[in-house]
């Protein structure tokens, strides 16, 4: 308690309701980082179904997501499930930078965008 930060025992997802919202937001965050983009041409939106607007499916959902909740009773409540989506794009962008030295600054990090950034 002295440090002000107390790490809760690693919550087993089976019992942790918070974890499920966080998992869902991580999945959607990855989806928006890697895939999601409304496409359009001169006359209409062309993203009209799940083929033309792909989202993350089970095959690309992480094998496991470990959620550790840190108890901060001294801090005012501010949200936990939905805000989890915010750092995802940055985390993936940083991972790409760490692996390749390349910064991609526009989502989604589609294969074309990544390829273009790597070759420029």
């Amino acid at each position, binding site marked *: 308690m002295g440090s002000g930060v107390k790490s809760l025992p690693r919550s087993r*997802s089976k019992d942790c309701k918070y974890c*499920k919202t966080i998992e869902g937001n991580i999945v959607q965050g990855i989806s928006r980082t890697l895939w999601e983009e409304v496409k359009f041409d001169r006359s209409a939106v062309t993203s009209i179904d*799940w083929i033309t607007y792909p989202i993350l499916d089970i095959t690309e959902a992480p094998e496991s997501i470990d959620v550790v909740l840190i108890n901060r009773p001294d801090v005012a409540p501010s949200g936990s499930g939905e805000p989890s989506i915010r750092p995802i794009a940055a985390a993936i962008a940083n991972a790409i930078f760490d692996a390749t030295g390349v910064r991609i600054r526009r989502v989604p990090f589609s294969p074309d965008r990544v390829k273009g950034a790597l070759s420029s």
Partner: protein
Amino acid sequence: MVKLTVNGKLHEVDVDPDTPLLWVIREWIGMTGTKYGCGIAQCGACTVHVDGVATRSCSLPVSAAAGTQITTIEGLAQEGKLHRVQQAWLDFDVPQCGYCQSGMIMAVAAFLKEKPKPTDADIDKAITNICRCGTFQQVRAAIHAAASA
């Protein structure tokens, strides 16, 4: 008139034979557990069992379902006892908004009959239902639990 057996009960419905089974189940028979997600068999929210086979009912004309045994989510529990997939779904608190989950449960129930002890790779290949809430981690965990039940 089209004769349909749904959850063991015979129904006679006066519909155009091209009507998708989904609408007959929801509008004519009045069972709304099966959901409309896309209408083009891409999302799986409309999954029912036709003679035990997981089928996307939004894209099956009702005439093709005549004479078959149709099971909807309402008919999965038998004699008041939850199907093991439903029980696992409760134990693992899988649904978030819940909209895709009827279809997900129906797809999984049929899948486990074909693959009683699936690996994660088997699951990824077979369960193509879309879940926008991203419940996939819990879906996998619940499938493994149901497989061991």
